[in-house]
């Protein structure tokens, strides 16, 4: 047992038992961040804040939501939206945050791709980040079932049905997932459990892993510069704050984070109060009706690109393409063969690849929502093929990249 002395203060008492000073240094004051970063590096904090908003608003909603196919719609649209004081506010915050969190995730992801932040020891950051993307997707989907509106029901029907399609023909699996032949009570209750317990636990665990994965390789910087964190931090601690290439996480970097968060929250709350239609789909304000298929069934915007990779092909090829799209991002650190961990702008062909991928995914997103008719299905097919070709080409175009 360690040697304990009579504490001289509360801080000292805690310090002897929890080493709070050490923890504070490791987590904040001597967690060194490069100075040459831009506001895109604040997206992690923006995501943390958005997740906190989701968690808090979700807790309030959970107090009134009823996971019962007969009462769910009523509990959301009557009890929460008009009976409970500020219930509408929590629902709007929850719905808008669930959509906006994906916008920030995509910005965060493409920032990582652009600056090569998945390379040279940062592979686990990328992997844990992609696992977060997958769990957030599952969280979003399960949450979308809960209001038990028309789009909840039919999206649940269509997505779970994927496993029964074409050569897969796993009808038993579909029934197992649904707990019934069609989405019904068993389906709603299990997605409720996933949404409020299992998936949030997984997300919180993965956020811990994502942060931990960042600790040893440190945050990347916008110039792809290799920084000697030991030497630079000594310089900082010796008093040369301006000359050092690094800064403390708190308060130095945190102050910039909070500035970006402040600007982000202006945008966020504008959406919550004045421009929420994109996140709270009108179709889902009609109660679920198994006998009335909506004219257009589409997923939320953040799933559209992968939906469009499924759609333009024949069933079996579509399923393979869809599966490919789900896992391929995970493999990025190994598909990129280049030794350079520098911004895309200095990597020649990779730079073109990056912008093509971004534009292709926006085209896929648009086509995924539009009805698959005429020119839209042709554009969708071309964009889906382009997505696959881009990823297959990636190892070849990065293999011969010169060391910069």
């Amino acid at each position: 047992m360690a040697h304990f002395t009579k504490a001289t203060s509360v801080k000292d008492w805690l310090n002897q038992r929890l080493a709070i000073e050490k923890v504070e240094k490791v987590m904040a004051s001597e967690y060194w961040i490069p100075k040459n970063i831009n506001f895109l590096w604040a997206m992690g904090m923006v995501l943390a804040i958005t997740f906190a908003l989701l968690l808090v608003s979700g807790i309030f909603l959970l107090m009134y939501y009823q996971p019962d196919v007969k009462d769910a719609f009523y509990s959301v649209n009557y009890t929460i939206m008009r009976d409970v004081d500020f219930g509408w506010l929590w629902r709007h915050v929850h719905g808008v945050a669930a959509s906006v969190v994906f916008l920030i995730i995509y910005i965060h992801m493409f920032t990582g791709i652009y600056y090569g932040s998945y390379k040279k020891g940062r592979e686990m950051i990328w992997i844990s980040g992609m696992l977060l993307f997958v769990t957030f997707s599952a969280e979003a989907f399960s949450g979308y079932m809960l209001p038990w509106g028309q789009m909840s029901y039919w999206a649940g029907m269509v997505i779970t049905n994927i496993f029964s399609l074409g050569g897969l023909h796993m009808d038993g699996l579909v029934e197992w997932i649904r707990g019934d032949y069609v989405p019904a009570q068993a389906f709603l209750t299990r997605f409720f459990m996933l949404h409020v317990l299992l998936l949030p636990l997984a997300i919180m665990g993965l956020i811990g892993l994502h942060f931990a994965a960042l600790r040893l390789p440190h945050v990347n910087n916008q110039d792809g510069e290799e920084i000697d964190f030991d030497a630079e931090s000594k310089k900082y601690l010796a008093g040369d704050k301006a000359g050092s290439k690094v800064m403390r996480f708190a308060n130095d970097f945190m102050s910039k984070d909070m500035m970006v968060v402040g600007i982000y929250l202006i945008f966020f709350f504008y959406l919550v109060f004045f421009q929420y239609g994109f996140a709270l789909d009108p179709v889902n304000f009609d109660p679920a009706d198994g006998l009335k298929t909506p004219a257009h069934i589409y997923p939320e915007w953040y799933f559209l690109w992968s939906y469009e990779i499924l759609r333009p092909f024949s069933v079996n090829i579509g399923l393979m393409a869809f599966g490919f799209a789900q896992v391929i991002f995970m493999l990025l650190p190994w598909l990129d063969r280049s030794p350079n961990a520098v911004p895309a702008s200095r990597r020649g062909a990779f730079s073109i690849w990056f912008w093509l991928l971004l534009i292709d995914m926006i085209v896929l997103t648009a086509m995924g929502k539009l009805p698959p008719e005429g020119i839209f299905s042709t554009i969708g097919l071309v964009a889906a093929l382009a997505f696959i070709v881009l990823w297959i080409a990636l190892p070849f175009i990065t293999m011969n990249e010169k060391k910069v």
Partner: protein
Amino acid sequence: MKNKEPLILVVVVAFTLLTYWLVEPFAHSQMHKHVESQNFAYADLPALTKSGDAANGKALVTGAAACIGCHSITKDGVPAGMDAVTAAGSYGVNPPDLSNAGVIYDAKFLADLIKNPAHALNVAHKFDAAKGQMHPMIAFAGAGGDIDQEVADMVAYLQSIAVKADQLTPKMAFEEACGRCHTMKYENWTQLGTKPEYKFEKESLAYDIKVLEYQEALTKYMGKLPPDLSMYFRSRNEHFLSTFIENPQSQLAGTAMPRVGVTADAAHKVIEHMADAGDTKRHERESVGKNVMIFIIIFAIFALLWKKQVWRDLH
């Protein structure tokens, strides 16, 4: 080193807005056909050429074997011949009370309705006289004089007894124009009226059974139970609701829903009532929204100042 942040911000915002535009305004413009509002002019209906005489109209409307054979006019002391459930059993839907018809419905529409109900209501496709399918409302064939003058008199009478337009509340407009086919559960509205608060469950259930009986007849008549409208303000947009009310066929060809022929003012009030049911907190949302925006802007300014202070030593 050059500050690239403004450029990065422009790129991020541009791609975000482009994606938003593609999946929201553009995609929806492709998915739903746009129907232009005709401002409730009912241009397809003939204009009223005669000026009506209310006293003569009263005699025609309340005369034996005339309108009051089926319709009540509670304002003028004419009660309904049968209760709503029995009426629905006979006609498919309970014929409306005519007390305020003159203010809710367009005059041209009323005139055409009296002379040719299926035509005015835009439901001619549902009825085929050759197969014995008659519209439950019998067309007025004239009382012996100039039929156009008689119809104008009847419309004038209905207008004379109705409340003034400024006294017509959104709730009244909705209940009279829509409420015999549509429920609005969140406002406690059934096709039989506002459901009373009962002390005993037995009484409450007895009321529900009457509603179900009414709905059974209605479903038979319409082919499908008309939807509950509690959340329609959120599930449809205002433009859709307005053009749909004006002419249901324009948005949903072949629908059993009749053109109800409301005036622009009454349509506006119907939609306002739907907003009162489906978006009750819209005024609170606006005022809370403004305050939150002010708070967040102040927060952002302090965050900016803090960053400037902290970073002063870092450069």
